């Protein structure tokens, strides 16, 4: 049956086999034939707007865009000819005529496609004066910025925003040109997930402060500056240094940060273990005491923003447990600092996050204790890599640090938080213990794993069946909500991550990214968990100590581990 769908084509004289319905570009990429393209992203619908991925087809006149042309039996495809090369050259000249060159702090500085193409096709990048000179930059709160002078109008960001399920970015005609703009509509707002950023081929989007904030970075010696890194970073940051996606570099990461002069490096996965315990307890409490169900996770700040703006009626269903990053920040300032004899005011917590929405999250007033924020600064994975490179610290070459993270090591459960389904799985492991008093024999919940957008499972814990859903991208959360509307009892517990694949596909992660890369990043985290001796949060001795010494008081639990939500008004408007 499968064989029937196979199609043979010839590309540049060599035979290849593909599937019916496959495009020329997709088949070429699969076979590592390079066809330059900008507006093609395997995550998203075909745009066909950049007009670079041109090929010729023997027997047909004209040029064809390989991204939008399907393979046919016996098709003879040519990827390089004088006509193709000329067309690419001219279209690249035109693309450069609308793309302001600011390569120094561009997130594609290391791997810029458009510059590589320019070299390959001998493009005069300054042939035309810049049409977009002086075009404005839109700021999306303190999370993202969009420099429209770099935008090449490919449409991928609008498509990504649509695929996430937000539709905040729009095309609007201004004078003679359509432009990508933040929506002016009152019922539309940005949730700061940053999928526009990771799908922009030319770096028109960046996190706020990327990379100015780390350009002249020096360690503030008057304060105690500590770093903490999110669960997913360990299997993604390697890409910034030429390592394969999914390569686990926990030790190297700690060593590299220490090389910056930072003495204390914390692992947010330890905070995740606390999140897990609190969240499992809340779930059990909600189930036992007939409180609002399903409970939704709330460690994804973009999802929380979505609820607070678009569907505030769901706020009672969000778990009140803070995200691992915020809990860890709180533990550092109010528990660890105290033990060290430090004033929390003199401790600066810098988080390395896979996320741009985390930049927004840390500024939430609800987290403050006596005017002090748990976390002072968020750097994306990319920003840390930029900082390390600027200090000539190469993660690839650095000796793995034997030193473990300050305060202690997390469980495997804390590490898998970085992948879609990880929060759910961790909480289920602990909830099992909470409900039955026993520890799980087999801790894996395979049904909630994987990068698919929507996973569901019925989990038997003791006599109780817990119905769970794990979704990534808001569009899939909407599907859950639609199901709940029909049947309010459809689920007990729902994990939502705004980004494709969860945090390993976050807006602060290395680019480029696609399903293959997300799978590898995710696998890296599960491999760590597999090797871990302790795989359930409640079994972590460090966490036990923290609960014995600090989280033994309701007051402390409340101010470090829990939060509340507030209905949000529109925050982001287009510039006039």
């Amino acid at each position, binding site marked *: 049956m499968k064989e029937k769908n196979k199609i043979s084509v010839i590309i540049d004289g060599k035979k290849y086999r593909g599937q019916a319905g496959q495009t020329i570009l997709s088949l070429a990429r699969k076979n590592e034939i390079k066809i330059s393209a900008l507006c093609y992203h395997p995550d998203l619908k*075909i745009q*066909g*707007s*950049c*007009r*670079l991925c*041109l090929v010729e087809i023997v027997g047909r006149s*004209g*040029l064809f*865009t390989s991204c*939008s042309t*399907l393979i046919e039996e016996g098709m003879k495809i040519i990827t390089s000819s004088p*006509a193709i090369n*000329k*067309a690419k050259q*001219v*279209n690249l*000249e*035109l*693309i450069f*005529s*609308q793309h302001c060159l600011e390569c120094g702090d561009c997130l594609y500085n290391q791997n810029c496609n458009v510059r590589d193409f320019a070299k390959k096709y001998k493009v005069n990048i300054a*042939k*035309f004066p810049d*049409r977009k000179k002086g075009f404005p930059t839109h700021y999306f709160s303190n999370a993202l910025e969009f420099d429209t002078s770099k935008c*090449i*109008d490919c*449409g991928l960001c609008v498509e990504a925003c649509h695929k996430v399920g937000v539709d905040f970015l729009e*095309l609007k*005609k201004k004078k*003679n*040109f*359509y432009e990508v703009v933040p929506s002016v509509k009152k019922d539309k707002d940005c949730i700061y997930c940053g999928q526009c950023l990771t799908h922009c081929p030319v770096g028109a989007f960046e996190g706020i402060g990327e990379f100015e904030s780390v350009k002249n970075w020096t360690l503030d010696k008057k304060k105690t500056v500590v770093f903490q890194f999110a669960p997913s970073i360990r299997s993604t940051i390697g890409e910034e240094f030429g390592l394969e996606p999914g390569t686990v570099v926990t030790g190297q990461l700690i060593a590299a940060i220490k090389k910056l002069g930072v003495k204390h490096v914390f692992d947010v996965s330890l905070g995740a273990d606390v999140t897990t315990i609190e969240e499992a307890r809340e779930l059990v409490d909600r189930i036992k005491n007939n409180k609002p169900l399903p409970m939704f996770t709330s460690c994804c700040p973009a999802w929380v923003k979505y609820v607070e703006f678009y569907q505030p009626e769901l706020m009672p269903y969000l778990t009140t447990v803070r995200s691992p990053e915020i809990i860890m920040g709180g533990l550092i300032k109010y528990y660890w600092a105290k033990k060290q004899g430090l004033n929390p005011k003199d401790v600066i917590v810098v988080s390395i996050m896979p996320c741009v929405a985390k930049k927004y999250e840390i500024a939430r007033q609800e987290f403050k204790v006596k005017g002090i924020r748990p976390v002072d600064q968020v750097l994306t994975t990319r920003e840390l890599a930029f900082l390390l490179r600027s200090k000539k610290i190469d993660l690839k070459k650095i000796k793995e640090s034997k030193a473990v993270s300050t305060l202690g090591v997390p469980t495997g459960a804390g590490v898998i938080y970085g992948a879609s389904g990880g929060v759910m799985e961790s909480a289920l492991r602990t909830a099992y213990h909470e409900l039955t008093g026993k520890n799980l024999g087999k801790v894996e919940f395979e049904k909630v794993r994987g990068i698919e957008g929507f996973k569901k499972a019925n989990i038997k814990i003791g006599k109780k069946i817990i119905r769970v859903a794990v979704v990534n991208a808001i569009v899939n959360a909407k599907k859950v909500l639609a199901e709940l509307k029909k049947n309010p009892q459809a689920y007990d517990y729902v994990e939502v991550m705004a980004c494709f694949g969860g945090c390993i596909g976050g807006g602060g992660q290395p680019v480029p990214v696609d399903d293959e890369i997300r799978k590898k990043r995710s696998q890296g985290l599960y491999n760590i968990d597999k090797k871990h001796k302790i795989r359930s949060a409640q079994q972590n001795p460090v966490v036990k100590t923290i609960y014995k010494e600090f989280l033994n008081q309701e007051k402390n639990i409340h101010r470090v581990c829990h939060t509340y939500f507030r209905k949000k008004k529109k925050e982001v408007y287009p510039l006039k």
Partner: protein
Amino acid sequence: MKNKNIIAKLKTSGLKGRGGADFPTYLKWQAFLDANSDKKYIVANGSEGEPATLKDSYIVKNYPADLIAGLKLALELSPKNSQAFIYLRKDYYKKYKKHLEKIIGNLPITVFREKGGYLSGEETTLCQEIENKIQRPRIKPPYPVQVGIHGRPTLINNIETFYHVAQIAKGQYKKTRFYTILGKALHKGVFELPLDYSLEKILKSTGNFPTFDYFLQVGGGASGEIILPKEIKRKATGSGSIVIYDKEKTDPWTLMLGWINFFMKENCDKCTPCREGTYRLREMIRDQKIDKKSLEDLFFVLENTSFCALGKMVVLPFRSAIKKLL
């Protein structure tokens, strides 16, 4: 089977689409008939966004019953709950809606008001409009006849085409077309004349043959080709419009600036060559400074790499005007 005979008749007649692309009508109708679906759409395209072209409005005004008869023939080839549209630009809609609806009666034909401009006449953009989506073309293939409005097979023909289909069904098709004659013409208007008439014959038989030094723009007031007096043995192309210019009194730069402003305003900015290419072409025309190599480069990418027909059509008027008028 009676109604399927129309396709054979269309084939014998040799009728080609009158929207400008000259695609054999019977092939489109056959593909529409062959497409498998329990609901299909039919659209009579009266977007008529091309400047200096008035034939569609002429037909809607003078032969609405024939237009509707043409649509009815297509409906007879379609599944039961199929629907047809008469897709009209704003001003035509305002003028003719009521009258058309009277003739339509109970037939499943809706008179649709187009919101956009020039590009909205492009058939995939038309589908977008009817679905109330952004006015930008879709990737082809699939063609609307396979996947059109709401994913359904959609037959889109120009209003004039439907008129002729009705004539063919009645056995009254005389191999004519509707020519719009404007500009410095003595008798401006729309004229139904034989298809095989040369430009010269058209001008003479309508009393419009210029007595002054002139040139023509044929096939559309923006996308048409510049034709010199020595070339008038040719036939009319595109939308069948002819604009007569007084050579003495026409500044080719002003003329070209008008066209390029039109294209820049009306294009959708989706693809690189059309968005940026028309912008750079405009700069050259505005500054009256044409660098031949750059110009040819722009023409090359516009013709060969534009997403839709609009970008491809931009080249002809400028190439002919620059060659023949400068």
